[in-house]
C-alpha cells in the first residue's frame, strides 16, 4: 500500500519534472525552418507574349485547378479563347498582390486584353510565385509552417478520428486505446489501431529517436503526459500538424502537412479537397509503406478506409465520402517537380552565401524571392535533353548545361546543370576551355583601340609564335585553309584562327585580359598566346556573365538570382537591386555585336540560325575546344541571353563543334522563347557603309555579299560604289544607269 503510494508519487514527480524540462526546451526551441525559395511571379498584361496554352501550363505548375465555377482562389476556367483566373494573391513584405478574378483574351500568341472582375481593363496583374524549393541542410528536415487559420478543420477532425479518437479527453496517453490496439492487432484485419495518441506521436517525432524499446515507450508516455500538462489541445494539434513526418524527397525529409500538401499536390493546404486531405491523413501511419507515388494501390486503399472512418465519425456525409473515394489520387506528377531546379537553388545559395551564414539559411525561416522563370527553365531543360537526344545514339553519356539571362537586368531566368538531376551542376562547376568564345574579347579590344574597324583588313595566313619557353606555337584554322586577306568582320564571323592570333598579338594580350575583366571575368587569365584561341577554362555561368555585358551594350550588370530576402518577421532583410557599370565603349560594343549578327547570318552560327524564324535578328558565337572536347554556344536576342555547353564529364572528344552541338541546343532554347530581335539602335558616332563581306571592298547595298557595317563617322571618307565586288565594269555601268534612270 505504501509502496504503491510511493510509486504513484514518484511517477507524478517525474512527470512534473519532465513537464518543466520539456517546457524549457519546447518553449525556447522553434523548428529549424529552411529558407523558402520562390520563382519570380508571372506578370500578366496586355501585349505580353504568352499563349493561352503556356498560361495554362503555368497555372498547372502553380497547382491551380480547372473549375468552371471559380469557387475559390487557385482555380481557373478556359472558355472561348479566354482564360479566367481566381488568383491567390500574395504579400511579401509590403509587395502586395490581392487575390482577384481576372479574365484574359489572347491573339497571335499574345495576351490581347486583361480585365478585372468588374469587366474594366486592368493594367497588370501577377500570379503568386511558384515555391521552387528550400535551402534545407543535407539530409535535413524541411517544413512549411501552417497557422491554425490555414489548417482545414476537417484535417484536425480526421486526424482525431483516425489516429486518436479520445484526443479531446485523454491526458497524453490513452490506456483504453492501448488495450484495444493490442487486442485488434492480434485479431488483425481491418484498419490497424494505433496505440499512440497524437501527443505521443508528437513527442516521438520531436524529442525521441525511433528506437523501439519498452523504456522508450515508457519515457514517451511520461513525456506525453507532461506535454499535456503544459499545453492546451489546440496548440498540441497545431504542433502535430507542423511536426509530423510525411514523406521523403531525395535528401529532404518532408515534415508537416503544409509542405506535404505542396509535395504531393503542389497546392496550399487550404485548397485541398476531401479526398486529398484523406490521403495525407492516410500517409501519417507509414509514409514509406503508404508512399502514394511508389505504392499507389496501397495508398488508395488506405485513403478510402480513412474516408469511410470519417463518414462513420459523421465528419462528412456517407455520400461525400463515397464520391471522394471514387476520385484518383490526383498527385502532382513527378515531371512537374523538376529535379533540375536544384541547379538554380545552388546558384541562389551561392549568391546568398556572401551575406548569410549557412545556419541562417537553413533555419531562420527566410523567404527568398528569385529571378527564376519556370517557363524559361522548362524550355531550357527540354532543349538540352531533346537536343542531346537528337544527336543520336553515340551521344549517350553526353551531358551539358544551359544558362538563360535577361541581359538588360542581369537576372538569371533559368539554369540547367545537366540532363538529369545527378547532383553535378555543370552550369556552375564544369570549368572547360571556351575555345572561340573568347574571340569577341579580342575583337572588342581591337575596335576600342581605334586602330581597327569592322572593315579593316586582317591577314589570315600561317604564323609561328615563339613562346617564352622557346617553343614555337603554330596555330591552324579549323579547316586548315588560310583565307589570306579578309575583312575583320569576316574573320570574326567565320572564326578564323590565324587572323585572330595576328590581331590579338597586335593589340596585346594584356589589354585583352583587362577587357575580359571589365566584361565580368573574375579570374585573371594567364597571358599565353594560346589564350587568343580560348585556352581558358570557364564555367557556363562565367561565360554568361561576359556575354551578358556584350548583350547589354557594354554595360556590366552582375548576374543575379535573388531579388530580395524577407525575414521571418515579414520585413525585407535585403534587396538585391540592379547595379550597373559601364564596362566598354558602347559604340565599339555595338559594332562588335553587328559582327556577332553576321556570325549568325553568314558565319559559324548559320546552322543554329536556321532553327529560328526568318526575320529574327540574333547575335551569337560558337566555341570549340581542342580535339572537339567542348562544344559551346553563346548568343542573344533583345530579351534573352543563352549560353549552352555540351561535352563529356570525363573530357573525351565529342566529335562536335560549337555549331553542330551546343549551337543546336541554343537554337532550341531561343526558338522556343518568345524572342524579340536584337535591335540596339546605332550610335551617332557610327555611320552605315555597305561593304563586300568576302573582300572588304565597298559595295552597293543590292549586291549579294554586301553587308551594312557601322563604321566610325569621323574616319576617312568611305568610298561609295554603285557596283558589286568582282563585277565587270560593264555590269557596274549597267546598274549605275538603271538606278540612275529611276
Amino acid at each position: 500500500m505504501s509502496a504503491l503510494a510511493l510509486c504513484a508519487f514518484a511517477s507524478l514527480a517525474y512527470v512534473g519534472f519532465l513537464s518543466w524540462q520539456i517546457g524549457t526546451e519546447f518553449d525556447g526551441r522553434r523548428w529549424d525552418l529552411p529558407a523558402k525559395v520562390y520563382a519570380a511571379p508571372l506578370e500578366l498584361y496586355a501585349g505580353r507574349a504568352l499563349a493561352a496554352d503556356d498560361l495554362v501550363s503555368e497555372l498547372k505548375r502553380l497547382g491551380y485547378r480547372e473549375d468552371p465555377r471559380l469557387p475559390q482562389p487557385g482555380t481557373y476556367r478556359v472558355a472561348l479563347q479566354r482564360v479566367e483566373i481566381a488568383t491567390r494573391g500574395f504579400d511579401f513584405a509590403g509587395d502586395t498582390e490581392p487575390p482577384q478574378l481576372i479574365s484574359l483574351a489572347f491573339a497571335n500568341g499574345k495576351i490581347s486584353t486583361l480585365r478585372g472582375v468588374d469587366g474594366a481593363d486592368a493594367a497588370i496583374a501577377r500570379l503568386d510565385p511558384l515555391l521552387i524549393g528550400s535551402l534545407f541542410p543535407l539530409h535535413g528536415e524541411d517544413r512549411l509552417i501552417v497557422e491554425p487559420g490555414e489548417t482545414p478543420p476537417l484535417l484536425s477532425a480526421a486526424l482525431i478520428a483516425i489516429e486518436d479518437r479520445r484526443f479531446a479527453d485523454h491526458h497524453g496517453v490513452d490506456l483504453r486505446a492501448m488495450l484495444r490496439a493490442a487486442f485488434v492487432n492480434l485479431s488483425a484485419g481491418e484498419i490497424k489501431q494505433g496505440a499512440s495518441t497524437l501527443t505521443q506521436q508528437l513527442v516521438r517525432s520531436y524529442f525521441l529517436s525511433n528506437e523501439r524499446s519498452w523504456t522508450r515507450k515508457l519515457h514517451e508516455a511520461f513525456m506525453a503526459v507532461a506535454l499535456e500538462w503544459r499545453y492546451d489541445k489546440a496548440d498540441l494539434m497545431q504542433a502535430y500538424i507542423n511536426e509530423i513526418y510525411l514523406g521523403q524527397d531525395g535528401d529532404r525529409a518532408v515534415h508537416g502537412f503544409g509542405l506535404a500538401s505542396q509535395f504531393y499536390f503542389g497546392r496550399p493546404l487550404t485548397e485541398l479537397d476531401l479526398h486529398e486531405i484523406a490521403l495525407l491523413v492516410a500517409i501519417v501511419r507509414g509514409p514509406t509503406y503508404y508512399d502514394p507515388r511508389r505504392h499507389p494501390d496501397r495508398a488508395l486503399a488506405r485513403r478510402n478506409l480513412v474516408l469511410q472512418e470519417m463518414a462513420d465519425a459523421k465528419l462528412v456525409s456517407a455520400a461525400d465520402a463515397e464520391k471522394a473515394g471514387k476520385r484518383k489520387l490526383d498527385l502532382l506528377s513527378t515531371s512537374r517537380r523538376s529535379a533540375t531546379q536544384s541547379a538554380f537553388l545552388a546558384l541562389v545559395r551561392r549568391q546568398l552565401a556572401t551575406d548569410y551564414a549557412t545556419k541562417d539559411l537553413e533555419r531562420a525561416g527566410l523567404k527568398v524571392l528569385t529571378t527564376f522563370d519556370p517557363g524559361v527553365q522548362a524550355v531550357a531543360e527540354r532543349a538540352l535533353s531533346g537536343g542531346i537526344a537528337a544527336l543520336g545514339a553515340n551521344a549517350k553519356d553526353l551531358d551539358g548545361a544551359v544558362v538563360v539571362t535577361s541581359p538588360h537586368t542581369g537576372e538569371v531566368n533559368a539554369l540547367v546543370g545537366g540532363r538529369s538531376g545527378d547532383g553535378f551542376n555543370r552550369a556552375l562547376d564544369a570549368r572547360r576551355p571556351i575555345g572561340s568564345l573568347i574571340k569577341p574579347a579580342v575583337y572588342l579590344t581591337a575596335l576600342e583601340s581605334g586602330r581597327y574597324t569592322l572593315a579593316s583588313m586582317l591577314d589570315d595566313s600561317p604564323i609561328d609564335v615563339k613562346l617564352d619557353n622557346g617553343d614555337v606555337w603554330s596555330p591552324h584554322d579549323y579547316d586548315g585553309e588560310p583565307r589570306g586577306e579578309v575583312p575583320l568582320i569576316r574573320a570574326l564571323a567565320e572564326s578564323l584562327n590565324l587572323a585572330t592570333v595576328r590581331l590579338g598579338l597586335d593589340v596585346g594580350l594584356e589589354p585583352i585580359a583587362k577587357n575580359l575583366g571589365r566584361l565580368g571575368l573574375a579570374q585573371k587569365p594567364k597571358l599565353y598566346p594560346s589564350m587568343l584561341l580560348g585556352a581558358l577554362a570557364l564555367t557556363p555561368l562565367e561565360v554568361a556573365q561576359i556575354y551578358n555585358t556584350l548583350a547589354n551594350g557594354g554595360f556590366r550588370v552582375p548576374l543575379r538570382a535573388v531579388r530580395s530576402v524577407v525575414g521571418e518577421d515579414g520585413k525585407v532583410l535585403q534587396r538585391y537591386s540592379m547595379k550597373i557599370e559601364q564596362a566598354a565603349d558602347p559604340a565599339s560594343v555595338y559594332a562588335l555585336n553587328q559582327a556577332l549578327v553576321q556570325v549568325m547570318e553568314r558565319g559559324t552560327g548559320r546552322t543554329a540560325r536556321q532553327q529560328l524564324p526568318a526575320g529574327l535578328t540574333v547575335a551569337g558565337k560558337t566555341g570549340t575546344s581542342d580535339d572537339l572536347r567542348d562544344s559551346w554556344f553563346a548568343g542573344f536576342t533583345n530579351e534573352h541571353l543563352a549560353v549552352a555547353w555540351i561535352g563529356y564529364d570525363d573530357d573525351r572528344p565529342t566529335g562536335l563543334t560549337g555549331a553542330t552541338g551546343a549551337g543546336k541546343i541554343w537554337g532550341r532554347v531561343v526558338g522556343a522563347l518568345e524572342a524579340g530581335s536584337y535591335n540596339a539602335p546605332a550610335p551617332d558616332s557610327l555611320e552605315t557603309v555597305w561593304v563586300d563581306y568576302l573582300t572588304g571592298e565597298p559595295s552597293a547595298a543590292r549586291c549579294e555579299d554586301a553587308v551594312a557595317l557601322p563604321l566610325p563617322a569621323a574616319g576617312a571618307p568611305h568610298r561609295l560604289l554603285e557596283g558589286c565586288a568582282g563585277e565587270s565594269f560593264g555590269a557596274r555601268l549597267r546598274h549605275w544607269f538603271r538606278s540612275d534612270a529611276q
Partner: protein
Amino acid sequence: MIHTSLRRATSRTPPARALTLALLAALAACTTLQGPQRPATSSRPSGAGAPPAAESPNAPAAGAGNGAPGAPESGPPSIAVPARPPSETSGATQALLAQSRAAREAGSYAQASATIERALRIAPSDPNLWVELGEIELASGDAAQAATLARKALTLAANDSVAVADAQKLLRAAGGH
C-alpha cells in the same frame, strides 16, 4: 506570425498538479536550477501572451497610386517628377511608372526602384524607364549609378529626342558631364 510556437495552457492546471509543481520547485531550488517560467507562477492569460506587435508589415504600401502619400515629417526634399509625354510603352509600364512615382514622392526609394525594375523587365529597351531609375538613384544619393543609367538610356534613346534630352539632363545633374 510564421512560427506556431506552443503557448502554455494555464487554465488546465488542476490543484493536484500545482502541488507537484511546488514540490518540483523545491527540488529545482536545491539544484539551483530555476525553471524560467513556471505555469503556477504565471498569471498571464495564454492567448494574450504576445505583446502588441509593431504595426503590420504591409502598412505603408506604395500601391495607393492616388498621389496622396502621407507627408514625411522633415523627410526627404520633395522631388519634382518631370512631366514627360506618354512613352510608347504599354499600359502596364505606364501603370508601374505611376506607382513608382507615387512611391518616390513618398520617399520610398526602394519601393520606387523595385517597381521600375518590374517595368524594365517588361520593356527593357525603353530609355524613359532607365532615366526614371536613374532619377531615383540620384534622389537616393547614388550619383555614379545615376550617371551610368543616364548613359545606358542614351544608348537606347536613338531618335527619341525627348528621351535624349531627359537622359542628358540626368547625366548633368549626376555630374557625369
